[in-house]
C-alpha cells in the first residue's frame, strides 16, 4: 500500500502529547513517527536509554507511551531489549503469549546512549542478532546534560565541552560513522533517515526495520533547537539542508546491499547547512574560512564513498 501521510496521521497516537520535551524538539516527532510504523494490530515494548526523551516522556506518574515501556539506565537499552526479546521468545514457546500475537521490541536512545556509552551494549545485541530495532535519535551531542560534545558531534560544532574561542574552532574530530559500524556487524537492515517532507522516508525505513527479522538499526538525524542554536520553527529547513548538502545522506543497507534513498537535485555547499545554526557561527568569522572548506572536503569524501557502495 502506498504511503499516505493523511492516513498515517489518522492512526491512533501511540506517543501522546503532554510530554515535557522542549518546544520544537525533534525527538518527540521521531517517537510519534516510530510508533506509527508499528502496525496498529501489533503491540510494542519500548526500551529507552536515559536521556532527554526518557526524563521527558515518563515522569512519574505520567507516561506519553501507549505501549509498554522500560527504562533501566543510560548505556544498556540494547541489553535491556535483549532481555525483553529473550523473555518474549520463551513465553511464546511456553504458550504464555498467543502464537499469532506480534509484539515488536524497539530500543531508542540519543547519540550519547548509542554512539558512546551505549555502544558496547548495542554492538553486543547486534552481534547476537536479537529480533529488535534500535532507533538512534542523533542530535549530535549530550543534550540532556547541556550540549556536551559526543562522538556524533560534527567537526567544528561548538559544544559546551568544545566551545569555540580564541584558540578553538569547536570540536576537533569528525563524527563517528555509526551507521557504517552497524553495517559492519552484518545487521540485516540498517538505515539513515531524518524528518522531512511528508515523512515517507522515515516511515518506510522504520517499518522495514521493525518488520525485518533480526537486530536492525535506524539512525535518525534529530535536530535540537537548544543545542544547535536555531529557532524552533526552522526544524524542517535544517533537516532539508542536511540532506541536500549531503551532510546526512539518506540510504539503507538491506542484507548488505546499499541503496541511496535520496539524491539531492543539486548538491548544496555545506555552509548552507552550517549557517542555519549558531553552533557553527565561529566558522563564518574572518580567518576561519578554512573550517568550511575542511567541512566541505570531508562531506564530499564521505558522499563519494557512499555513492561507490550504492547499487
Amino acid at each position, binding site marked *: 500500500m502506498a504511503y499516505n501521510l493523511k492516513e498515517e496521521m489518522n492512526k491512533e497516537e501511540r506517543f501522546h502529547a503532554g510530554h515535557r520535551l522542549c518546544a520544537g524538539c525533534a525527538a518527540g516527532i521521531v517517537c510519534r513517527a516510530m510508533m506509527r510504523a508499528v502496525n496498529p494490530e501489533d503491540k510494542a515494548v519500548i526500551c529507552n536509554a536515559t536521556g532527554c526523551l526518557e526524563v521527558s516522556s515518563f*515522569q512519574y506518574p505520567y507516561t506519553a507511551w501507549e505501549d509498554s515501556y522500560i527504562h*533501566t539506565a543510560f548505556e544498556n537499552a540494547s*541489553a535491556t531489549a*535483549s532481555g525483553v526479546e*529473550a523473555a518474549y521468545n520463551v513465553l511464546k*514457546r511456553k504458550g504464555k503469549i498467543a502464537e499469532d500475537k506480534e509484539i515488536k521490541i524497539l530500543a531508542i536512545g540519543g547519540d550519547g546512549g548509542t554512539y558512546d556509552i551505549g555502544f558496547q551494549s548495542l554492538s*553486543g545485541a547486534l552481534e547476537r542478532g536479537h529480533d529488535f530495532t534500535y532507533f538512534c535519535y542523533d542530535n549530535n551531542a549530550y543534550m540532556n546534560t547541556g550540549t556536551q560534545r559526543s562522538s556524533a558531534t560534527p567537526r567544528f560544532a561548538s559544544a559546551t565541552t568544545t566551545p569555540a574561542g580564541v584558540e578553538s574552532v569547536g570540536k576537533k574530530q569528525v563524527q563517528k560513522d555509526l551507521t557504517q559500524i552497524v553495517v559492519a556487524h552484518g545487521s540485516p537492515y540498517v538505515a539513515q533517515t531524518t524528518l522531512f517532507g511528508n515523512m515517507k522516508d522515515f516511515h518506510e525505513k522504520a517499518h522495514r526495520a521493525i518488520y525485518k527479522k533480526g537486530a536492525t538499526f535506524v539512525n535518525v538525524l534529530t535536530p535540537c533547537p537548544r543545542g544547535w542554536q536555531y529557532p524552533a520553527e526552522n526544524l524542517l529547513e535544517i533537516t532539508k539542508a542536511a540532506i541536500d548538502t549531503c551532510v546526512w545522506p539518506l540510504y539503507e543497507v538491506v542484507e548488505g546491499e546499499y541503496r541511496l534513498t535520496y539524491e539531492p537535485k543539486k548538491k548544496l555547499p555545506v555552509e548552507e547547512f552550517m549557517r542555519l545554526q549558531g553552533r557553527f557561527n565561529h566558522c563564518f568569522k574572518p580567518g576561519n574560512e578554512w573550517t568550511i572548506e575542511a567541512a566541505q572536503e570531508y562531506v564530499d569524501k564521505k558522499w563519494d564513498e557512499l555513492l561507490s557502495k550504492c547499487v
Partner: protein
Amino acid sequence: MSIRDRLSGNEAIATAMRQINPDVFAMFPITPSTEIPQYFAQYVADGKVDTEFICVESEHSAMSACLGAEAAGGRAVTATSSAGLSYMNEVLYVAGSLRLPVVLAVSCRALTGPININHDYSDSLAERDSGFIQLYAENNQEVYDNYLMAHRIAEHPDVRLPLMVCEDGFITSHAIENIEIEDDTAVKSFVGEYKPENYLLKEENPLAVGPYGVSGYYMEARVAQAHAMINAKRVIKEVAADFEKTFGRHYDLIEEYHMDDAEIAMVIMGSSAGTAKACVDELRGQGIKAGLIKVRVIRPFPAEEIAASLSGCKAVAIMDKSEGFSACGGPLFAECAGACINMDARPKMIDIVYGLGGRDFTVAAAKSVYERLGEIARTGQTGPVYVHMGQREV
C-alpha cells in the same frame, strides 16, 4: 526422595537452576563463577531446560538483560564474581528499585588489586546497600538449599526484590562435597511458577517501568523498597519453615552454635564458620564457654537476632572477610556494633579482618581469636578494636 550426590557449589547451583528451569539466563564468564553458566549451557544443549540462554558481552549487560527479561514477565537469572559484580553495580540498584526479583548467584571473590581470584567478601559486601537480599552459605548443601529458596523469597508479593545467593569462591564453588539433591518434581513444586501481576508483555495491559521520579515521588518509592526489605525478613523465615517441612533441613537468618551459655563468641560468615565450629568444639571440650553466630542473611540484616544472641556474652569478635577501609573496622563489624547499640549490657566487641584474597583461615587461627576474647572477658580491657589477622609482618 532426595538423591545423594557429590557436587561442587557451582554445580549444585547449576543443578538447582536446571530443576527450576528459569525463562532467561544471561551470562558473562568470570572466575570462579564461570562453571555455573558452563554447566547450564550443557543443559541447554541437551534439551534439559526451556531457558533462553544469552551470552552477552559484559556483566553490566547480563544484569541489564535480566532486568528486561524479568520486567517482561520471565524468571531471569545470572551468575558472577568479583569485578563482574562491581561492573553490575549500577544496574543492581536499578533491579532493587524496579522491584524485579532477579536471582544472582555470586561466587564471592576478592576485588582488585592486586588482582586475585580467591575468596573474600569484598565483592558481595560492597553491594550490601544495592537493594539485593543476600544469602550466604557455609557448605555446598547450604548453597544448593539457599538457591532452592531464592526465587520464592524474591518473588513473594510482599517482597519483590532481587536476591544474591552467595557462595565462597573456590572454597564452596569448586570443592566437591556429598550433598542431598532433591527430586526435580519436588523442587519444581516447592519453587512454583513465576506469575507476576504486571509485566511488559502482558497483552491486555501495557506497563511502564523505570520512570523519572522527581523529589515529590522519589522518597515514597525508596520507602516502599525499604519496607519490602523489612518484609523480606519474615518471608525468609516462612520460606525456610516450608523448606524444612518439605525437605527436612532447617534454616534461619542466623545459626547459633553453642550460644545458649556462651561467654565469648565469634560472629562469622560462610565456610569459615565450619572451621570456627571445630575450634568451638575443642574449646567446649576444655570447659570454655565459647560460641559462634553464623550470619546466613546479610540483607535484610538480622540485627535483633544477633543482639539477642549476644546478650549473655562478655566478649565478642566480629570476623570480617573483607576490608571496608573505614579505618575503624570491616563492614560486618559496623553492622554488628550497630545491632548491639541499644542493648542494656553490651559485650566488649572487637573486629578481626582475616582471610583476604583467600588467605587461609585455620582452627588454630580461630583459637587465637577465642584466646584473646578470653583475655578481654577476664580483664575487661578490649585492647585494639580493629586488627588484621594472618598477614605477614610488614
